[in-house]
């Protein structure tokens, strides 16, 4: 056998590649269920943490039902689409659709007799996508809490959006200006209020060195929440 002949090289590569492909797809298929269960629990954990309920990933599945009283999938005009499970909406795919055919998942939480609206967020960071949840109080203006996650933002800079000090700066900020118009929350560098004492200014302090990730956070808050305004108008007029 001449192992450097072209024939041997080709046959060897084909067999090797087929073998590897088989092994990998077999493992991936057989572990998929466990992996998906982990992703689902993490999603529940993140939703709960945005309303201030911090639990471990394993507990989240049990406690989720206790706190989340309703899951709605909304149409762009604010009406409810009963045919779509809100929890199963894959926001990564959904945000790519036109805004009028998207379904917007909304989670309604009930924590210690307080009602919160949890809106899933998704946007672009510097390197890849960022996502999270924002929980609004019953007045649909004050932020109860947020949770963020990212795929591959820079550790120490953009990746800081997952840290408590950053997340906590959103608490009690408003998404509407003093006249009641929806403006979102901006991450600003020129914040005159670095201590973040002014909760009416629609601003939180940005992270140094993470401008693009920060802009991504501001943008996704505005872009996502504005889709829910028709629904909120509807319920407040009822």
């Amino acid at each position, binding site marked *: 056998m001449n192992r450097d002949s072209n024939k041997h*090289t080709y046959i060897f*590569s084909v067999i090797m590649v087929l073998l590897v492909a088989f092994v990998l797809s077999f493992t991936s298929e057989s572990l998929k269920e466990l992996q998906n269960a982990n992703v689902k629990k993490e999603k529940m954990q993140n939703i709960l943490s945005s309303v201030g309920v911090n639990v471990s990933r394993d507990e989240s599945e049990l406690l989720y039902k206790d706190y989340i009283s309703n899951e709605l999938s909304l149409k762009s005009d604010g009406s409810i689409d009963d045919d779509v499970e809100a929890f199963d909406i894959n926001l990564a795919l959904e945000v790519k659709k036109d805004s009028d055919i998207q379904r917007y998942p909304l989670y309604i939480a009930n924590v210690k007799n307080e009602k919160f609206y949890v809106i899933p967020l998704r946007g672009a960071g510097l390197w890849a996508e960022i996502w999270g949840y924002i929980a609004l109080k019953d007045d649909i203006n004050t932020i109860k809490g947020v949770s963020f996650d990212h795929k591959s933002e820079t550790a120490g800079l953009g990746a800081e959006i997952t840290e408590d000090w950053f997340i906590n700066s959103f608490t009690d900020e408003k998404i509407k200006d003093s006249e009641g118009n929806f403006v979102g929350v901006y991450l600003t560098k020129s914040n005159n209020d670095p201590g973040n004492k002014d909760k009416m200014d629609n601003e939180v302090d940005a992270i140094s060195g993470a401008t693009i990730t920060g802009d991504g956070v501001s943008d996704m808050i505005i872009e996502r929440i504005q889709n829910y305004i028709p629904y909120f108008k509807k319920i407040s007029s009822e």
Partner: protein
Amino acid sequence: MSKDKEPLFSKKNRALLTDPLDDDNPITVQVLGICSALAITVKLEPAVVMTISVIFVMAAGNVIVSILRNVIPTRIRIIVQLLVVATLVALVDQFLKAYAYDVSKQLAIFIGLIITNCIIMGRFEAFALGNGVWKSFLDGVGNAAGYGWILIVVAFIRELFGSGELWGIPVIPQFIYDLGYQDNGLMLLSPMALIVVGLYIWIQRFYNRKLIEKD
């Protein structure tokens, strides 16, 4: 072949396991695999998981390459080696996602970066391609352990002095903080990993005179 009669753990074979721990350590002597040593030594847990993953990838990879060493076409051997590492790393990644989700999130891209860990390709190329299966296995375990040993030492020091914890559990008692002690935040930044590795090399050379070059 007379070699077959060599005992499984002959002196030579044991050296394959133990040399990389000290005399021929991949990080502190050969200075390979530094990049991941900086990145994942902030805490003990990911360092230990990384060590286990690398031991698995390196031992299994060395064995596979060694089994195939007489049929791998020479011209595409690097590609074949890459394929072997990449496959094993993909397997590790899948298992971590299923059974150790938090750790897999923490390690995230570093698991993928095992593929580019120069120690692994180096051992395939320099050892497994020219040696038997058993020896290659020992060499793989030895080198991965030598790599992991440094990770664990550095992570131990950085987590202890950087966040006052070990394995996520606070170990420095409160009264020491009350006396004015503070965790050293610098320990958590990458440059300190380099400095700790440097100190390790200094101490290692102080005790292991064999390593000192004769001018």
